[in-house]
């Protein structure tokens, strides 16, 4: 019995080590969204260069991807080809929110690389982004047909992210 007592620190160490091993797994830069399964925040943003803007009501009725981007955001360019491909396939409604950007810069970016968005809202003050819980661009939110946020992608969507996370979720939600 007393022998077993000496094993107690070893057991305690194993428990703590296991806890830390689990805790250190995964990417610490990814924060879970506080809005998962909650209704998307209400917003109504002006459009880019006289085009119609984007409001929460525009998302209603179908599964939508809301992509926060900016012309000054380098990682946004890495996901841009994928967004263009999605727009060509046309299976999912892709909306853009231009985050803390000069509208003319955003317009120039889209003229250069192509505009994958059905509608774009310009969030110059970044308030809509704060309402969504955005802490950096790009971020992409999956909003279901009932207007609830189902997933948040932090950082550019890689091909692997799309195949493994977003596409299965969109299929489950009945988007494509």
């Amino acid at each position, binding site marked *: 019995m007393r022998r077993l007592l000496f094993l107690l620190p070893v057991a305690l160490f194993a428990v703590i080590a296991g806890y830390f091993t689990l805790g250190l797994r995964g990417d610490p830069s990814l*924060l879970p969204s*506080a809005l998962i399964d909650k209704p998307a925040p209400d917003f109504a943003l002006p459009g880019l260069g006289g085009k119609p803007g984007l409001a929460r009501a525009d998302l209603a009725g179908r599964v939508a991807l809301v992509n926060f981007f900016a012309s000054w955001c380098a990682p946004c360019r890495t996901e841009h080809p994928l967004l263009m491909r999605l727009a060509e396939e046309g299976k999912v409604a892709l909306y853009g929110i231009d985050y803390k950007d000069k509208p003319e810069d955003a317009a120039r970016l889209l003229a250069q690389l192509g505009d994958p968005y059905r509608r774009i809202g310009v969030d110059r003050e970044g308030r809509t982004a*704060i309402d969504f819980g955005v802490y950096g661009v790009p971020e992409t939110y999956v909003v279901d047909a009932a207007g609830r946020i189902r997933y948040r992608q932090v950082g550019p969507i890689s091909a692997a992210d799309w195949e493994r996370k977003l596409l299965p979720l969109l299929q489950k939600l009945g988007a494509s």
Partner: protein
Amino acid sequence: MRAAPFPSPRPSPASGRGRILALLCLILALLPLPALAVLPSERLADPALEARARALSRELRCLVCRNESIDDSSADLAHDLRVLVRERLKAGDSDAQVLAYLTSRYGDFVLLRPPVQPDTWLLWFGPPALLCLGGVGLAFALRRRRGAAAEPAPLSAEERQRLERLMREEEA
């Protein structure tokens, strides 16, 4: 006789004092200064409200820099959040309402001091519990050791016989 163009070096006691002064200056220069991230344009005119905003800002995590409060951070998002906190206070929100708004957007992670709730019990009460456990263990161990030292085991019959024999041999 020619006048010295510059004052000659002072005698040693004064130069010792000068050295101390220089050292003090050096220490002062090396003291960490608060990073004054709050821009004058952000401040509220009402000092009481501004004081509340500062106190709240110190409780809120800058989500870009992670281990800084938004009061200390010069990140863009921290600036936006500071302005937002002040706007909400000006609109009449209580401190709790401001914190509730931000946790509804960014989760409990935005609070630098995690709230006490079932999933943080281990965090809050784990270390004190471990300390208590260690204290109890130590108390037991000490008690046993003292008990062992105070009362040596009584001699067995065999030992007593041997002792008596030895004593008798000594007398003889």
